[in-house]
């Protein structure tokens, strides 16, 4: 078990979760919703988008978010990351920035849900795009972190 150990499984869960989450967002915004807009009648379209958004939000809250937090925390613990080291240049600061950006992305995603519920379509769409682009930034920073 030299190359594929328990910790690589944890990292796999973390990376796979991130890929699925970002991929899901991309698929929703670039493929499913535009197609729904084209193909469905206005009323069905609204119901479909709302339902799709709600389900993705539920998946995020129930599955992706807890999994990312748990595996991320475990890896940080494994690597010996301390609160103080988060401020230090290099690994710690990159990780801290990634976490901050992740928090912003999550806030934007939550804001998207709220705005959508309130019928603020433009704001909702802005926040959705911010969340999507921001999560690509999270992935970028994650790849900049040296492997555990």
């Amino acid at each position, binding site marked *: 078990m030299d190359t594929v150990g328990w910790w690589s499984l944890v990292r796999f869960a973390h990376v796979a979760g991130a890929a699925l989450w970002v991929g899901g967002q991309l698929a929703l915004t670039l493929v499913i919703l535009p197609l729904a807009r084209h193909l469905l009648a206005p009323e069905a379209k609204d119901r479909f988008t709302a339902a799709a958004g709600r389900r993705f939000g539920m998946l995020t809250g129930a599955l992706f978010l807890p999994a990312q937090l748990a595996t991320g925390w475990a890896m940080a613990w494994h690597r*010996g990351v301390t609160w103080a*080291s988060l*401020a*230090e*240049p*290099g*690994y*710690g*600061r*990159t990780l801290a*920035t*990634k976490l*901050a*950006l992740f928090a*912003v992305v999550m806030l934007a995603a939550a804001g998207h849900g709220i705005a959508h519920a309130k019928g603020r*379509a*433009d*704001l909702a*769409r*802005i*926040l*959705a*795009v*911010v*969340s*999507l*682009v*921001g999560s*690509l*930034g999270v992935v*970028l*920073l994650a790849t*900049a972190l*040296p492997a555990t």
Partner: protein
Amino acid sequence: MYSNNDDPAVGGGSPPSRFKASGLRSRHLAAHVLVAAWVVLALLAASAQQTLPVARWLAIHLFLLGAATTAIVVWSEHFAVAMLHAPLPDRRWNNARLAGVNTGTLGVLTGVWADLPVLTGAGCALLVTAATAHLVVLVRMGRGALGGRLAPIADYYRAAAAALIVGAVLGWLLATGNVGPQQYTGLKLAHVHVTLLGWIGLPVLGTLFMLWPTVLGVRMAERTTRLARRVLALTGGGLLTAVAGLAAGLRVPAVFGVALYAVGVAVAVQLFARTVRRRPAISAAAAWMLAAAAGWLLVGVVVDLALLAARPLAAVRDDIGSLVPVLLVGLVAQVLIGALTYLLPIVLASGPKERAALRAVLERGWMPRLATLNLGVALLALPLPSPSGTAGILLAGAAGAVFLALAVRVLVRSARGVLQDTEKAGAARRPVLWGTAAGAVLIVLAVLVANSGGNTDGPPLAAGTAGAGAGTGTTRTVSVTLFDMRIHPAWIEVTAGTALKLKVTNTDAQRHDLKVEDGPTTPMLAKGHTRTLDLGPVTKNREAWCTLPGHRAAGMTMDIVVTGSTDDAGAHEGHSMTATTDGGLDLSADFSTGWQPRDADLAPAPGGTVHKIELHAGHTQIEVAPGVRQQMWTFGGTAPGPTLHGKVGDVFEVTLVNDDTAMGHGIDFHAGSLAPDQPMRTIQPGKRLVYRFRADKAGAWLYHCSTAPMLQHMGNGMYGAVIIDPPGLAKADHEYVLVSSELYLGTPGSTAQVTKMRQNTPDAWVFNGVANQYTQRPLTVRDGERARFWVVAAGPSDGIAFHIVGTVFDTVYKEGGYLLKPHQAGGSQVLDLATGQGGFVETTFPAAGHYAFVDHDMRHAEAGAHGMVEVSG
């Protein structure tokens, strides 16, 4: 403010309608989107203050130079037109000026951020050009204009534009380093004053004369015109005096000038206070915010005056740093918020209904926002411990951010209106564009933060070991202090391949950091904060500097110079232990609490002619350098052992007791003349020996352990001094004994330590056994007093060239004879003693001051053979 608002200031002429032209509306819209963008960037920079070195500078300049300047340029032109009843200036030139100011600002900020002085210079030049054009427009507007009761207010804007020009030039001098350290303090203060009190303070004051009654909805007081002129004379004249004084480094004119300015502000504030009537204001929110802002201006100026009056300029330069956030938030941000709350609806709305709606949005929750903001400023202003300062920033930031959000909403709503007027299509893609842009900005910022402050190539955990493995295996930690716009030491010499660590401490009142060329950077260090930089093995010369704008140029630099590797680098192999034990000798660190220096005073010779002493040989843990404890082999529990003092002919009867458990020791008194066989023999643990000698000759004598290997026994501390006064020795005010020796760290007798002794590579050279002890606890003398320094060179290998910086010896006594006496014409600079020799020198200290005494072999002096005589007046 015009038409509907009972506007006594302008008095219902034709200008109002012109401002409603949709062209003007979109221009205002564009300008305020710019202001909002600058503010957002400023807030971001402020939140990154702890991590990005130039963030504090950036936050201040994004806000003042970006947001405030844009707002002032736009509004001062707008008001000048209204108050002079002048025709509107040409729109294209107008846009060009605004673009010039913003582009120039962008150039300055990017130039400082990316450390490109040429770009900074170009930005400043553009800014000065735009400001000059602004000034010219304002002056020409006055000519041929009808003028009104409020015409003098345009003079405030003209004076402010001139202040911006001066401020930009000063800022350029500071940021690009055309200022030496001597002028830095004065010019920095001049820059801060001319920009804050001139470019920002003057237009604020001037505008308030008109805006304040308008916001309150009352008629302007009759004497406003007269008072406005008088206040401008006071504030403008005062500022001119203060800035000239500061630039020349003169405190008195500066105090006088700021006092004039304060009087001017007080006169204006008193007029404003009298304008308040009982009936409700048109915008209570705006009125309260403007009032609070004027209050903070007065507070800021008074505190500034007190600082300038009470303290030297260099101290004010540091203290004023804490005043800037107060003025920034309390005055500038609050004035912006207050004025925009009232003015934005007027310039952006197309009708009274929309105006009321926009104002309702902007005034939402104004009371809690006002309270939060001013509580935040108060927390920032009061000298409380750091958490309250952070809380202040957060509170003020929250209040500002809420207003920003409201303003953005108003801008967006109004933009939608403008867009609807012009084009109706193409709106669908806009949210995606906005979202993408915002996301991209987020990513760029995140990458900037992540990449700040050092190399991300290697995980920091491995850096230390990798460095040691790759280099010669030696690690050196050097203490570096940042103080008074200087880096101490300014020059570090290391052998190629040495893994270098810099323990950086900021002891200055203002914040600094230290960046190493192609290497790591410390975060901004507040006073007293320390951070260690690991440079790894150093193979080429490098420079290090403080990254704060202008500090490097003003001389905050350090050179790390690499010398060729030592000839016998190979000889170091096989004892990596030395690297770990000798790596961390930090002579500027603090001694442990409770540590006492060795008393250097020579105790008077006891009475009588026979002196009986019992001397125990043993080993003891001693703090031999700051924070470094080491086992030493000792006579009498100390290294060096006790000093024996007597006069010629005295008999010393020394009973040596070997308290050591495993090792034999003996003793050798150079002051006696006798057959060594018996008295100098080695005695085993637990045994005693009586050593009796008569001191037939005067001098400063060495005694030491006589057991082989003597290099180790002496190198581990078994030596001391015998002082025999020459007959007729005059009394001195102070008599000190300094025994010089080498210090070898490591376990006594270990291969590593003995190798260092054999190669004569001590870890330090010391006076009375402890490195730098009298540097940290100076000997104290009063000026004019005569001091005698007895010096004995105990070695084991090196002699000494004893010298006191700033004095000349008038008496030199060496090896039993006088080389120089006070009545002779010559003077002496160094008492040179070979290993095992002794003597004394005398001097009187000419004046109060700090006189270092050193071994003038500078390798020795820099490695611990250094002390201080503190002479008081």
